[in-house]
């Protein structure tokens, strides 16, 4: 039997339209990780969210890429009622997270290379 999709409302978890604190993002992550651990599909609703930060999204969603595969996340997670500019921010957070978790040593090397190319002082 097909399991029904569960819904997580950011507003409900955070209790406010301001999804800005990393600690609040962690609460969202814990719910998502628990659901994904049971192979449950989740619709994550951004309804009534007015402000997001990269710190919140890194904790809530970026962090998932360290524990679950891209394929699992693609299959299990769906976002709803999200504004276009928030979606653009989420996309950048996800791209950075994928890079971060793909190869941490390479990520560090990129950091070093950036400094060598940079102009410093």
């Amino acid at each position, binding site marked *: 039997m097909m399991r029904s999709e569960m819904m997580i409302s950011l507003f409900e978890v955070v209790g406010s339209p301001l999804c800005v604190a990393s600690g609040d993002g962690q609460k969202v992550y814990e719910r998502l990780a628990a659901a994904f651990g049971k192979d449950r599909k989740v619709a994550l609703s951004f309804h009534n969210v007015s402000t997001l930060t990269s710190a919140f999204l*890194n904790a809530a969603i970026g962090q998932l890429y360290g524990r679950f595969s891209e394929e699992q996340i693609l299959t299990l997670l769906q976002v709803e009622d999200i504004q276009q500019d928030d979606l653009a921010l989420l*996309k950048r957070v996800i791209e950075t997270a994928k890079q971060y978790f793909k190869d941490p040593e390479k990520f560090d090397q990129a950091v070093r290379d950036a400094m060598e190319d940079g102009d410093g002082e």
Partner: protein
Amino acid sequence: MRCALPEFHHDQSGFATLVRLAAETEECLFENIEIDMHATRWFDADMCAAFGAILYRLGKNLNTVRLKNIPSRIATILSKNGFLSHYGQERIPDRWGTTIPYHRFDVKDDRYFAGYIEKELIHRTEVPSMTLGLSKKFRESIFEIFSNAVLHSHTELGIFCCGQIFPKRHRLDFSVADLGIGMRRNIQQNTGLELSPAAAIEWATQGQNTTKRGSVPGGLGLKLLSEFIDLNGGCIQIVSDAGYWRRGQMETVAVPLSHPFPGTVVNIEINTADTNSYRLTSELSTADIF
């Protein structure tokens, strides 16, 4: 001990004044410290955040701080924004509503900070009307700055905020200061990179760079902030350790200061008359992002 405070602008000269004060008083313990402000003919109110951080640290070291000979015009502003309430004076009403109050937060006060921003910046009629897109970007920026202080500063002495609105000049200044380990040491401890203080700030503002290690990725906050400021036509200044960094009009300056600031200050200047829509040029699909 007596220290004179000259004019105090929110620019490189103002930060140079501040780090000199921090250096002069660094070793003070159980002292009476008088800050003589008779020559302070100008005081950019948002600088209360960084100034308040230095004075708070002096209090933590059991010194008694007194502000003396404050010119009346400056005393009025600093009483309106609540700064002088910390130094024995009464708060006075801000009839024109151009101040954004001085506040000290603990790192766990993120909900309280959100309430402060809602009350003082979002739901206030005195804040110049901004386009919806600008207003949202501005809010995001303020929260990114605060989150950075919470996540990276390791401060035990708090996070200090203050702002000022200049309606006729279509400008809003807002500063966040912390008394944490500063960017240079944070980068050194987490990545092993040995950078000068100014180069460390430059490093932290690059998109792919992060000192975050472990399960939560990071590295976007200051990059997003710089991108917004470039579009808005405003300015961002960061002081951390003995480094000063400024970006405005698409140009970046990174120079050393004579002494270190004992933490980090991030200060933004917003052009409130900006009419950019901040809408995306192409539509994104929720199916394409994971």
